[in-house]
């Protein structure tokens, strides 16, 4: 201690007025590298969790899209619009009740009901007419839904804040982390678990799975397929609406919010494999993490990263990670 002090002093005196920095600098550098290393471990861990939270939204949107495609072979181009409608229903219900938890229940129910109405009135006449027609119809529908929303809520976006109980940050061992993002991951896990129970453990789920394999045989067995399809369209759009509500505090609410999420949902479907729920989950999380890390290292490339991932998937696994071959002929 004494020695360093003297030597440092000597160092100083040896260079009066000059910058003594060689040694000091080294100490300084050492310190930044140390703290940087420490920071960077936490940073990477945090970015991973952020990616999972971001991915949760992707998973919900992708699962809804895949569910509808897997059973009805409909590519729902209005899926993003249902996402947007969910957020606006959330804004509306929150303004009326002031309670986020009521929104959590009301949004999927109302959005799902709108979805079922759409299926019954618009999509059903198109069954058996070729795979492109429902796609084109829902594409037009998305424009209509967007403009109706603009008429009802205005062109400007709406602010939407997370409920107070979910604001702030908690220490999760790798530093402070926004509570709301943890909540996203938790809610997504619960929904996926409930969906799994519904599809694997209930009689209705059995019918759904059978219908995804062969709707004709299901019909021969005397099951009313159209009710099943109606319900599944409702479930898929309901989940999309809920995803819209959950994303609202992070992405904001605007009539156009459905367009980027639709494209992102397509990327996820392509990466995960069309009509595969497991694929949608894996791809959603993967895309979330990839985007999150690109944002950390090369923010200007964040938007490209998911497309690059899609291109790589297309080159090496054209059917997606968990896609079945020949599903769409």
């Amino acid at each position, binding site marked *: 201690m004494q020695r360093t002090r003297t030597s440092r002093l000597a160092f100083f005196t040896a260079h009066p007025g000059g910058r003594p920095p060689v040694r000091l600098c080294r100490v300084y550098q050492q310190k930044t590298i140390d703290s940087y290393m420490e920071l960077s471990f936490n940073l990477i861990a945090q970015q991973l969790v952020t990616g999972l939270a971001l991915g949760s939204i992707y998973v919900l949107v992708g699962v809804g899209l895949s569910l509808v495609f897997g059973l009805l072979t409909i590519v729902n181009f209005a899926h993003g619009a249902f996402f947007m409608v969910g957020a606006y229903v959330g804004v509306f219900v929150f303004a009326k009740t002031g309670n986020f938890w009521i929104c959590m229940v009301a949004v999927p129910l109302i959005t799902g009901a709108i979805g079922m109405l759409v299926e019954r009135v618009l999509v059903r006449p198109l069954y058996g007419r070729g795979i492109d027609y429902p796609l084109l*119809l829902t594409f037009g529908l998305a424009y*209509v839904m967007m403009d109706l929303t603009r008429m009802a809520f205005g062109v400007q976006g709406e602010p939407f804040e997370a409920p107070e109980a979910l604001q702030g940050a908690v220490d999760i061992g790798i530093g402070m982390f926004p509570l709301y993002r943890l909540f996203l991951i938790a809610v997504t896990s619960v929904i996926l678990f409930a969906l799994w129970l519904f599809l694997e453990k209930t009689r209705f789920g059995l019918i759904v799975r059978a219908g995804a394999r062969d709707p004709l045989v299901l019909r021969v067995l005397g099951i009313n397929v159209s009710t099943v399809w109606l319900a599944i369209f409702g479930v898929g759009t309901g989940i999309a609406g809920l995803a819209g509500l959950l994303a609202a505090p992070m992405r904001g609410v605007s009539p156009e919010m459905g367009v980027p999420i639709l*494209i992102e949902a*397509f990327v996820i479907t*392509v990466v995960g494999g069309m009509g595969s729920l497991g694929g949608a989950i894996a791809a959603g999380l993967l895309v979330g993490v990839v985007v999150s890390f690109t944002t950390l290292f090369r923010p200007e490339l964040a938007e490209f990263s998911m*497309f690059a991932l*899609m291109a790589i998937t*297309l080159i090496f696994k054209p059917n997606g990670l968990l896609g079945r071959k020949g599903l769409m002929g």
Partner: protein
Amino acid sequence: MKTKNTFQSPVLAFLGKQPALAVMALLAVFPLIFPFHSLAINILLFGLFAAGYNLTFGYTGKLSFGHAAFFGGGAYGCGILISQYAIAWPLALGFGVVLAGLIALLMGLLAMRTRGIYFAMVTLALAQCVYFLFFQANSLTGGDNGLRGVNVNTVNLGPLKLDLLNPLVKYYFMLVFVAIAIWLINRILNSAFGSILEALRENEHRARACGINVEGTRLLSLVISGMVCGLAGALNAINLSTVSIDSLSYHTSGQVMMMTLLGGMGTFFGPFLGAGIFLGIEHVVTGITERWQLIVGVIFIILVLFFPKGIWGTALARYKK
């Protein structure tokens, strides 16, 4: 109804025999009977865009949501050379077309690896990727502000000087290129290659069994389609003297798809008719209300539900009955 049929039949018979000539003749007369010349130019260029799109959607049976990348790519390719490097417009125009063809080739190589309905999703995602690419290349493309200063005011053809600031002159200047493209499309569709395209649309498996290289043919048709759309985009850049980043957006791809379906996919005249009606509706409705997308969306839904062949396709089917 009967009088209408007797009025229509000679026209339809003529159009049926020589679709390319008929379309060219109609387009040549169009601005003389239509008072809004700048709208006429829009219809002409978007008609060409839709005709290029129709090569993919109507004749090959592939639903694409990525054609904005070709249109916008052509527009930026041409616009950047003119505004940033002051290169002569014929070269810039050619470069725009080639660039659009290259984008189509790359996109096709990736998208053709998937089948069926995937194609719509992959082309949409890749077009979005192109959008971000041009958006980020701020110094070259102007990013969010768009590209300005794509000025081609006069065209010197030896002794002839064309003043492009006059909309009517500009229309006929554009029509020359559109006519060449129409002639080429007609030539391609009437060739053996064109028959193969339609064979692919009708039955891919049988075509493959006949020894046709399905992937190669599809890729080539996408590149041709991309180049036609690129030409439309490049001409539009000269027309507007700016290129907006919106020309690469999802909505542009959607618009051209709606135009093609509105007019009648897989028909020669349909895309131009569709572009005319779509832009006409937009022109009229935007004067009344801001919510024109609502009107267009509802019309589109009705079309998909009840007239999937489009206006011209339905008319042709009626006539053939």
